[in-house]
């Protein structure tokens, strides 16, 4: 996973994505890519993994950080 390591912790890219969601609220993948400077394909892939890990939730076509996600970057 590009955003979560095998120990279940966010990678540097993962932290950037989670922080972007924490600081900007509900965001599209495109907005996260713009804010973080991470390539859009990596953001899309990372968000998919983080939804599966319940760090992020998909609300229609946008993403929101969960309580579990916030705890991981505190």
């Amino acid at each position: 996973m590009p955003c979560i390591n095998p120990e279940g912790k966010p990678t540097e890219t993962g932290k950037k994505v989670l922080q972007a969601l924490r600081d900007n609220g509900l965001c599209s993948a495109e907005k996260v890519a713009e804010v973080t400077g991470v390539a859009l394909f990596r953001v899309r892939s990372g968000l998919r993994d983080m939804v599966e890990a319940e760090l992020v939730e998909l609300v229609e076509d946008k993403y929101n950080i969960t309580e579990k996600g916030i705890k991981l970057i505190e």
Partner: protein
Amino acid sequence: MEENQATQVSLPRLGDKAPDFDAVTTHGNLKLDDFKGSWIILFSHPADFTPVCTTEFIAFAEIFPDLQKRGVELLGLSVDSLSSHIAWARNVEEKTGVKIPFPIIADLSKEVSLAYGMVHPGQSKTETVRCVFIIDDKQVIRTILYYPLSTGRNMQEILRIVDALQMTDANGVATPANWNPGDKVIVPAPNTQEGAEERVKQPDYECVDWYLCKKQL
């Protein structure tokens, strides 16, 4: 048996929708859909830790910023394992100072390479040949290049093709032989007698005859 072999060999053609994939890469699991909206150069190489491939990876890394400026992502592929790809990319950086900035698909199952027709049994039954698929932002295959195992690819030609495709899409023109950015382009030939008569009178066109006219963009 023959039928089985026939179904395994898939050769996508220009204008086809690029085959979908869901692949393990050095940048995590990636799907074709993750690249939606970007152009992609998907290329295969025969094997990690081999000399020609190493020179090509360095060369691809060197044109990576030029591709990014053109909205193009790079994606490598071979049938080696993920560990092999990671070790090779680290070795290239350690020995040459060149960081490999793009993901590499570890296609051990050959699922992607067979879908894209990257294994040419006449060259090698086990390795992928040197394929280049240029896929546009609508995920349509626009160019396919095949190079044999012994011949490294020409990065300037790959950049030139991307430039030509993006320029012709934007301007509805075509490019002559050996075209490079800044050169005159070909205006589509008229398809009526009247159009042909008008074409040769166009003052800003350089015409050999009605069907072969160039203009400066």
